């Protein structure tokens, strides 16, 4: 357990990224506008080895982070500023982003998650109402390469999607756990919250898997639905391709699903 005042973690902690190559963990602190980098084997009340924080970073309510060990980069989707900030992942202190994706052509609208595929040179972003895929090195005001959005997708934070992962070797995009169905949106206007409360959408959770190249209003290639059998606990995901496992966390639970179909590699 990594816990205690020296760790500089906030009680609200929404993400963790593993850099398996350099054996490091990256954790955002939204309230102090910082990204904390720990040893991979950090334990107890242990201080981070580096902290990215300061005026030059342009960080705001940073609540997510992705690492690209191949190119030694680290990136975060900034929902307050509708931008993606990219840093050197071996940087510390008050450093400027090395790239910023930002502008009307990007269609970034309250982005909450970014993931990177260093092998196929892609970067995927979860938006308010769409999943956007860019080239990994895109910078400035650049249009997305592919956009997955629409009623068949059930995708976007307004539909409850909170996380996304990429599986480069199989060229798959995994997004979850969307809430779809008659009460698909979580907006006050659209949900009858008086009956069941603000955070209890009557829709159904599911994890959707899309293929690289999917573009537009495209149904997922595969789905894992929330049912009494699957008991999907939430919306946060991790991949263990070697074991063929999809790990899902939420509602105070962590569940491990053995889904080797997702982790089939493509040539």
């Amino acid at each position: 357990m990594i816990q205690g005042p020296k760790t500089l973690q906030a009680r609200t902690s929404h993400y963790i990224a593993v850099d398996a190559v350099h054996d490091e963990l990256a954790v955002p602190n939204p309230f102090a506008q910082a990204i904390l980098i720990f040893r991979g084997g950090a334990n107890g009340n242990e201080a981070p080895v580096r902290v990215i924080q300061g005026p030059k970073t342009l960080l705001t309510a940073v609540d997510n982070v992705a690492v690209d060990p191949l190119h030694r980069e680290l990136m975060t989707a900034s929902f307050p500023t509708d931008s993606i900030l990219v840093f050197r992942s071996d940087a510390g202190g008050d450093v400027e982003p090395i790239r910023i994706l930002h502008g009307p052509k990007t269609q970034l609208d309250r982005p909450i998650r970014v993931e990177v595929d260093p092998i196929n040179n892609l970067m995927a972003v979860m938006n308010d109402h769409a999943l956007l895929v860019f080239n990994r090195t895109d910078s400035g005001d650049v249009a997305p390469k592919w956009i997955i959005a629409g009623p068949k997708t059930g995708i976007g934070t307004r539909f409850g999607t909170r996380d996304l992962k990429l599986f480069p070797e199989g060229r798959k995009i995994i997004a979850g756990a969307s809430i779809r169905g008659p009460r698909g949106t979580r907006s006050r206007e659209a949900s009858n919250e008086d009956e069941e409360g603000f955070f209890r959408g009557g829709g159904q959770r599911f994890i959707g898997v899309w293929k690289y190249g999917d573009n537009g209003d495209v149904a997922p290639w595969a789905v894992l639905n929330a049912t009494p059998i699957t008991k999907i606990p939430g919306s946060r995901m991790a991949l263990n391709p070697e074991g063929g496992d999809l790990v899902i966390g939420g509602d105070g639970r962590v569940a491990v699903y053995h889904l080797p179909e997702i982790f089939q590699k493509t040539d």
Partner: protein
Amino acid sequence: MGVPERFWRVMVGTLLLAAVWIQFGYGPGVTAAQQRSNTSDRRPMVLDRAPARMIADPNPVFRAVVLDAEHGEVFMANDKESAGTSVLVYPTQFPPTNRILEPRRRIAGPKTDLGMVCGLALSIEHGELYSVSGETGTLNVYPLDSTGNVGPARRLRGVMPRASAGVFLDVKNDELFITTEHVNRISVYPRTFQEDQEPLRFIQGPVTGLGDPHGIYIDGTTNEIFVSNHGNWRETQPGEGEVRGPDSLTRTSLGYNVPGRVVPLVPSTGQFLGPSITVHSRTATGNAAPLRIIHGPHTQLSLPDGIYRDPVSGELIVANTGDDSVLFFAKDAAGDATPVRVLKGPATKMKGPVGISIDAKRNELWVASWDSHVAAVFPRMANGNIAPLRVIRTASENAPLASMGRIGAVAYDPKRKEILAPN
């Protein structure tokens, strides 16, 4: 041989033509059309199957603790989603036992809209229980004798910011005070608020000293507000976090139809200020500086949470989550003050203390420990490594620590074959 040769020439020519046709514009169209066809007709492969493994703690935890000394009841907030969030009500007096104690009643279920219930307050005079959630922007009111899956009698869903942590009822002035971590703010509402109530006033802004505020206590006699701060700080603007449609100063990513303004890419202001207790005037408003701050290495403050003032001695009592202690400060403590007493050690059974209260009628101190599933009762003047008079526990003594709360993410470390879950 002549015919086959011509045949092959025609075939090669046709293939070359086809290649050129594809190369110059039609090919991608065909590919795209095929892809459109493939994806538009796509029927997803259904992977529904049971999890191979599930990790969860089914035992409730204790967070905020408030006392109805008059009727001998203690109300505790359980914000553990895997146990179903709830308010658990126990008698204040019971024979000491180390067994799991069942609550006298519980408020729980979808109608309650408790969310991640973090803060509790109560009014004996008006028979009301108040709850705030660490997730939603709501303040709910329940009759004090509520039980089961009951909806709140009243709800505040005005411009209150999301993710509030602490709530306190100033009985003397009939006002409710609420802290919000995300936007470093104290909001004040009349106890008799209506659903769309505007705050009477709020404290928020760069000079307030508020940095990731949690617990709150109001002394209506000295007109002081005491707030525990974790110290994660960024510059906020007065009014930030209020839900006011497209003009909201905070952009939200949660899919509401009130996204707020886009924040410009400007220099970051974030800092680690270190933990503190800020003391404010009860009537302060806007970007007002605190009256004094308790802050520094001698204070021993470490992730301070619940805060209470001893009604007899005036001492300030702090649930110090980060080092499993309760700190007692002199009533006029300021600066880098050393606690006058520290309750700490294995005999106390405290692990991750967050909630704190005093039963003045019975001269007892209540401490709720989140990590160990224990609420412990001590003599009011307890000091050092002493055993509690009695405990309420929701899990057996040898149960694993609660550790997992709201899981913000999961990650997999392939080197150690470990699942990581920040929460």
